[in-house]
């Protein structure tokens, strides 16, 4: 024992580096897949340099539209119209989130294995999985436009149904992660299942679930812009037209409005989310001070 110690101590042999076989293999395989894809795809790479020749000209045209005096015709009209469509996108996103929240809230309890029995949890989870795998644009063209016709209502319903998938999954995972103490306490006082849900489960998960709703609202704003391309309302509906008509000055205005409104809504939503999550600590502080006062 001491002999080996002195031997390794005296020699300047470095420790053997760990085998690099696995990482190397992963890199080689990934590279091979990417190379195969690059060779197989018919992407006409020779057009790539066009970005450097075409884009600056178009960006100049867009900037030209943005930097016109917005209070003179026709620019004032363009800005008003664009804001009108963007607000429609925000409205679609909001209503879609409200619908998704209302429908996903009960479903998330049915998908939580510590609340619902196993034979309920498994099918509900599958439904949530299926919804999550369908892009909103498919929901819009396949189901909502045939029923609700072209327009913002179809897009709203597509966003609402699409939101159920993610909201239900995230919320049910939050419910599964609750502290079991309050549940045991209520059961010990003889509360029935509904009372346990109302007083032990919901208060614990509500801040987190509301934060998920806000998060989904941010996602829905981006998604609502996409839906317009198939005629389901919002800013996307003029985006497609403008690009077809190559009206670059108005495209510039539209992109600026999208970026501006999205960034502002994101900031507000993130601030509210932070408050909800940190505010959730407050009631528990009051509760802990309660018994002290009573004593």
């Amino acid at each position, binding site marked *: 024992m001491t002999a080996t110690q002195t031997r390794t101590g005296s020699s300047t042999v470095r420790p053997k580096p760990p085998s690099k076989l696995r990482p190397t293999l992963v890199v080689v395989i990934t590279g091979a897949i990417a190379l195969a894809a690059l060779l197989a795809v018919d992407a006409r790479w020779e057009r790539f340099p066009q*970005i450097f020749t075409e884009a600056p000209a178009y960006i100049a045209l867009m900037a030209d539209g943005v930097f016109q005096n917005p209070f003179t015709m026709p620019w004032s009209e363009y800005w008003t119209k664009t804001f009108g469509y963007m607000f429609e996108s925000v409205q679609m996103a909001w209503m879609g989130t409200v619908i998704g929240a209302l429908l996903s809230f009960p479903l998330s309890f049915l998908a939580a294995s510590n609340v619902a029995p196993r034979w309920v949890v498994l099918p509900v989870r599958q439904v949530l999985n299926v919804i999550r795998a369908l892009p909103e644009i498919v929901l819009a063209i396949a189901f909502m436009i045939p029923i609700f016709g072209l327009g*913002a209502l179809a897009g709203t319903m597509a966003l609402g149904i699409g939101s159920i998938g993610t909201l239900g999954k995230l919320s049910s995972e939050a419910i599964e992660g609750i502290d079991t103490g309050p549940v045991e306490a209520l059961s010990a006082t003889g509360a029935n299942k509904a009372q346990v849900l109302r007083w032990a489960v919901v208060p614990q998960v509500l801040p987190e679930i509301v934060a998920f709703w806000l998060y989904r609202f941010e996602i829905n704003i981006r998604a609502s812009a996409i839906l317009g391309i198939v005629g389901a309302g919002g800013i996307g509906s003029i*985006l497609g037209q403008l690009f077809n008509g190559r009206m670059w000055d108005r495209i510039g205005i539209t992109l600026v409005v999208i970026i501006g409104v999205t960034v502002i809504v994101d900031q507000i939503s993130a601030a509210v989310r932070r408050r909800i999550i940190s505010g959730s600590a407050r009631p528990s502080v009051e509760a802990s001070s309660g018994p002290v006062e009573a004593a």
Partner: protein
Amino acid sequence: MSAPAAQATTGARRPDRPRKPPPSIGGLVGLVAFAVITAWAAIGVEFTLAPLITNLTRGSDVIWYYLHPNWEILTRPAVAEGFLETLYIAIIASLIGCILALGLSMLASKVSAPNSAVYQVSKIVLSLIRSLPDIAYGLLFVAFVQTGALPGILALIVFNIGVVAKLTPESIDAVDRGPIEAVEAAGATRFQRARFAIFPQVAPNYLSYCFYVFELNLRASMVLGFVGAGGIGEVINLLMTRLDHSSVSAVVVALFVVVFVLDQASRTVRRRLT
């Protein structure tokens, strides 16, 4: 003297319940704001559920087509090529986008950015990139380099940078500072610091985001096809304009299966990573 006695007697009959906390002002304001915004939005989108009852017959034809998919369409070479193109676009865009995003992430975290000016600027640039929807990038790149797979790849690269470079800096912010101090003490350069102290710590999260982005790309490719940026979406768009609903249905079901299988595969990989 008598007051406490009276209290004691009532206490004996019925134990005093703790008083309910008064409703918080913030909560009330929040509720009112919620109601106002919801009313504004509902009026704006002319929200009604009436079409569900009245128009279900109108939609029922289309839904009938969807429930009877035309499976033969899947054997057409154009459809198979569309699927393969989607897959190629997703692979190439994920790889390039993730590599570029790693560099940008290093600039957009306080821990790894060279100075706070670079950090602030990268943060702003990334949030601007993220606020445009993928469809806008699709339209822009179609205008720049014409239709085909190339604008699709370019649009998704930008979109991927937005997603990965949002998530990774948050992981970088949370790294253990010990290894950084250690390599700094050993005289590491900025690159060596990022390579040997920061990257190994965030690698599992970063790779998991890359797989997540790959899943998103398969879905996004469908949207991009609607504006001529390649992939299976172009096939779906063509079938849609012909109102060939049963063929659309078959292609969508096939896409669903492909996405589902790749999702599961990628999720198992992601679970092993983290």
